[in-house]
């Protein structure tokens, strides 16, 4: 081989080695960057893990994240913006350092550093507006190496707070943007690079998972708290219900109450007003969770106290209404049917405070009679308006059946979103009217179960049924024959 050829070969070899070394250097740099990134992410997760105790608060977590990202990016300032989904606007939750506004603003002057930060925290950015809004919209990060010559940074603001270089990255889970992270200016005066952006993106991904997790956790904790409250309310309410139906000569009484998972509660009560008069109450409290149970308890006590004052159900309810109205919130109300039964004469007087109608199957009549005298729910209006609540009096005799119920019965739903309804209720009572009161209630419950086909109960279900039957001693039979003559 000639000397020249050798020289060329050696020269080519040197160039090749030089290029290879460059490639290797670039490769090493890439690995170094990746390693740095990996370290940064691991360090981030570790730090976050340390700081999270049993109270997970979103704001605190965001501050930790921002601090970390600003540190690791060697940035002068940084901010995290979260997206308000409903309004489609971004709002800064954390601002570190002298963070400048990044979209067009008109005629603002800040005399103090503090007022700039306050302004940034108050500012709402529309999705699509400025660089922050644009990253939120596209879900793509942006690197601005030299802000002075970049059209994405509006010129009128850079004279005001110097923006040399910046990076913006979305916080997103899969493709859903939760927020945006931005860092401005490097502390060492250099410009941000693609490697820096890559790091920011990795950290933003982690931050997004964090934000999402904290939100979900808070939602769950809230839900659990609410469920616990509701459970407590239900347990409390069951303490207020009668343990068993009263023993009344000449009366076959049965009752049933089953709470649903949510919603305020039903209650029913039997009150011995005096030796000859039995008060029956059935009620439905409208109001969520614990307040419902407390109102229930209050109403029960007030009714028991006021029942002694008068044998007129309407008068008693008027008094109860006053107490309830004063002591409850505007949105809380109770529907109630309160009846006073004279167990000697079998005369039943009742008043209906916005409650479901009273169902009666008179022995000698095929069709049921529904009574719904005028009335307004308790706790809403003052006396003068409430006094439209009127009373009805009916005479009962052997074999007559009365059923009181709450709207959970007729509003029970099946999987086709149909309601059980009053018609079906009347039918099932009709078909069991000749049996005992307990049989009537069992028939209703069974039919509701058949109808709802396993759909969970939405509202409390309460039923009171009673049947007038043969009196058990001579005294009662005298009274019975007298009242039979009077019956309508």
């Amino acid at each position: 081989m000639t000397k020249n050829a050798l020289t060329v070969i050696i020269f080519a070899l040197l160039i090749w080695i030089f290029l290879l070394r460059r490639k290797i250097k670039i490769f090493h740099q890439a690995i170094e960057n990746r390693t740095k990134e990996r370290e940064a992410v691991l360090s981030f997760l570790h730090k976050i893990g340390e700081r999270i105790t049993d109270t997970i608060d979103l704001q605190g977590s965001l501050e930790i994240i921002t601090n970390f990202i600003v540190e690791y990016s060697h940035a002068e300032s940084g901010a995290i913006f979260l997206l308000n989904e409903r309004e489609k606007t971004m709002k800064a939750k954390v601002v570190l350092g002298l963070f400048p506004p990044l979209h067009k603003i008109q005629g603002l002057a800040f005399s103090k550093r503090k007022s700039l930060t306050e302004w940034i925290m108050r500012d709402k950015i529309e999705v699509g507006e400025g660089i922050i809004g644009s990253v939120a919209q596209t879900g793509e990060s942006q690197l601005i190496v030299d802000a002075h010559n970049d059209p994405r940074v509006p010129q009128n603001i850079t004279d005001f707070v110097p923006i040399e270089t910046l990076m913006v990255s979305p916080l997103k889970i899969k493709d859903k943007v939760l927020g945006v992270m931005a860092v401005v200016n490097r502390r060492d005066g250099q410009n941000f690079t693609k490697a820096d952006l890559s790091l920011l993106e990795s950290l933003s991904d982690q931050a997004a998972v964090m934000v999402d997790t904290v939100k979900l956790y808070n939602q769950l904790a809230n839900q659990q708290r609410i469920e616990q409250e509701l459970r407590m309310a239900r347990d409390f309410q069951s303490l207020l219900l009668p343990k068993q139906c009263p023993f009344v000569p000449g009366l076959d009484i049965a009752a049933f109450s089953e709470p649903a998972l949510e919603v305020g509660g039903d209650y029913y009560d039997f009150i011995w007003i005096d030796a000859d008069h039995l008060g029956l109450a059935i009620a439905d409290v409208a109001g969520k969770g614990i307040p419902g149970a407390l109102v229930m308890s209050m109403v029960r006590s007030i009714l028991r106290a006021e029942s002694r004052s008068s044998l007129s159900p309407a008068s008693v309810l008027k008094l109860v209404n006053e107490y309830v109205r004063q002591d409850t919130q505007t949105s809380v109300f109770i529907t109630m049917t309160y009846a006073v039964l004279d167990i000697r004469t079998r005369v039943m007087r009742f008043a209906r405070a916005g409650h479901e109608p009273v169902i009666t199957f008179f022995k000698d009549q095929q069709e049921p009679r529904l009574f719904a005298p005028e009335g307004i729910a308790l706790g809403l209006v003052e006396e003068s308006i409430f006094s439209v609540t009127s009373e009805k009096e009916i005479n009962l005799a052997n074999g007559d059946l009365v059923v009181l119920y709450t709207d959970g019965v007729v509003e029970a739903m099946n999987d086709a979103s149909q309601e059980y309804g009053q018609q079906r209720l009347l039918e099932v009572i009709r078909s069991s009217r000749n049996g005992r009161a307990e049989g009537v209630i069992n028939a209703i419950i069974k039919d509701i179960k058949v109808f709802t086909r396993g759909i969970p109960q939405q509202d409390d279900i309460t039923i009171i049924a009673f049947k007038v039957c043969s009196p058990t001693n001579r005294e009662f039979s005298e009274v019975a024959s007298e009242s039979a003559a009077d019956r309508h």
Partner: protein
Amino acid sequence: MKSFDLHVKVEATEKEYSMIELSGFLDAHTVNSFETHIEEVLKGGVTRLAIDLNDLSYISSAGIGALMTLTHHLRKKQGDLVLFRPNQKVFKILDLLGFTKIFNVALNEQELKSYLNPHTR
């Protein structure tokens, strides 16, 4: 089980009153959403409100409670609420509860105008 939802549409904000259209279900699950929408409308200083209930399929006691609070709030400010065209089912519920004695219920345009026109008060 179908998911029940509430749709609120602010129909018109005339000087005299604002009209809101409700459709879907107003119950314990959707009541918060309803209240948030109302807050927005009330921010503008509205005191006379009409709610078109024609497309409201169902209202529970929670929903009624919310309407009650709203009525109370508006009346305190010398304003009022009118429930416009409730369907048969919703009207029945309102009537049974005695709420037709408390709320203004307008069944047609004429009744609506008479409730909301301050000059006829």
